[in-house]
């Protein structure tokens, strides 16, 4: 179970990117964080895994036996230990392109391997077999020996998920996993994540409320760093407005469409960067 308490990320200028956000995620949940670009979705997830240090707040992960791990205010060693239990799925290319698909998956349990063993021996055949199981679950077993750089975006995303599965974490974190994918691949990814979430909770940052409504069990809405909604994944337009702001704004129209819009008559056309590269906040 993940517990985020009073998370605060404040710039030296005083601007609060994440403002007193608290929530918890438990078994069987498929939580989605919704919000505009810059609202703080990705930043919250980065804080959970410790890639960004929050100004204050506590993030705690508890396993079924009661042992807990923190990712805030901890030293490097404990952070690494906590990270073993968080399966991170980024958007886009973060597989090591020059390693094979199988090796990329095996990277998932690096936290459990002593660095000396990594340098002297590398991975073992037993680990490779387990990694194949993870790849099989995402239907990428046939690509095991290929270089990760030769895969398409959708395939890379699936390998990312396989890596997270192989990790056997306590929770999966997905940072905009389908934003750079076409609708068909996006559906494929969501249909992998959903059954996954039944055994191990998944929390992800998403852009697409319509997709989220079909697959997720719960939505957390953030706006300008603050938690403005925490409840059912079926959002009414008023609730969407609360998360995304003015219904007539360009952001609203683009963010809430299931398909990326390039131009709609009557509105200012603007190519939102999030639609192509999605630099996380």
């Amino acid at each position, binding site marked *: 179970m993940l517990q985020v308490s009073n998370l605060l990320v404040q710039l030296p200028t005083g601007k609060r990117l994440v403002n007193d956000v608290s929530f918890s995620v438990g078994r069987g949940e498929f939580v989605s964080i919704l919000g505009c670009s810059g609202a703080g979705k990705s930043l919250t997830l980065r804080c959970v895994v410790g890639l960004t240090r929050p100004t204050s707040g506590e993030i705690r992960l508890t396993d079924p036996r009661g042992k807990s791990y923190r990712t805030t205010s901890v030293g490097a060693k404990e952070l690494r230990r906590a990270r073993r239990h968080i399966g991170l799925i980024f958007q886009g290319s973060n597989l090591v392109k020059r390693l094979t698909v199988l090796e990329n998956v095996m990277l998932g349990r690096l936290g459990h391997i002593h660095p000396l063993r990594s340098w002297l021996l590398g991975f073992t055949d037993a680990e490779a077999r387990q990694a194949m199981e993870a790849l099989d679950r995402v239907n990428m*077993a046939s690509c*095991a020996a290929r270089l990760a750089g030769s895969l398409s975006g959708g395939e890379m995303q699936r390998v990312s998920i396989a890596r997270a599965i192989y990790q056997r974490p306590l929770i999966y974190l997905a940072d905009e996993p389908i934003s750079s994918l076409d609708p068909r691949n996006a559906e494929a990814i969501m249909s992998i994540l959903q059954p996954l979430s039944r055994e191990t909770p998944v929390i992800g940052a998403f852009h697409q409320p319509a997709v989220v409504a079909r697959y997720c069990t719960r939505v957390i809405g953030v706006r300008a760093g603050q938690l403005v909604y925490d409840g059912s994944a079926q959002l009414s337009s008023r609730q969407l407005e609360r998360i995304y702001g003015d219904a007539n704004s360009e952001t609203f129209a683009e963010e809430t469409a299931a398909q990326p819009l390039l131009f709609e008559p009557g509105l200012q056309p603007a190519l939102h960067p999030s639609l192509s590269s999605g630099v996380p906040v």
Partner: protein
Amino acid sequence: MTPEVPAAALPSRKFRFTVISLIGAIAVLCLLFAFLGMTPASFGVDFRFVLDVVQQMLPPHLPLLWNQKSILLSLVDTLAMAFLGTVAGGALALLLAFFAATNTAPHRLVRLLARTLLVANRSVPQLIVVLVLLIAVGIGPFAGLLTLIFGSIGMYGKFFADTIEQADKGTLESVESVGGTRLQTIRFAVLPQVMPSFVANLFYAFDYNLRAAIPLGVFGGGGIGFELAFANGLLHYKDVLAYTILIVVMISGMERISDWVRRGILTQPMATR
């Protein structure tokens, strides 16, 4: 049923491969050392001797650098050699490159000849060039300059020729289609595309030639290399160390400056045509 791990991706196999390659590489290295007649024993040095020589070198005779005007002048000579060698050599290289590129050469045979000349020029060792030139035009920076020019032609001619060949065909054809002569095509279609890479390479060539000017000076080509070799011959090691420091500072400094100037020139927006 989970599919088997593909044989090529088996970690144990990769591990064996890595170990064998490593052992192989070390074996090759040992063989190479053995070929040179070097055993682990030859690395043993008489430390007292080393200390003695090092003591002769320290402290470096730095006041020489500002007291003796001739030293700073020879530094300027080295810079001058490198500069002019780059400019003249680069210009000639560009000229030859136009004859060596498939899209600008007047005739296939001319292109073949130009390419062969470039290859030959590049392969001739600078050592023999400088020695011959020293006899031909005498000791001093002129011989060094001519050596650098000679060397630059071959080194950059090939690269420029490749760049010219990569020029966008569409632009060339559009100039030709309105009746441009070959020369006009080159001037308006090829040259603008090649210019940025040409200018950037000139800066790299300058860095290279500056370093190359030192050994040329040692052999007699003038500049700070000449002073260094002279002092070395007289066993004035304190002077040698002082010149060494000067050379290091010059090379590092000029590299930064040339980097800065290159960035300044290349990021200037070209004229709005």
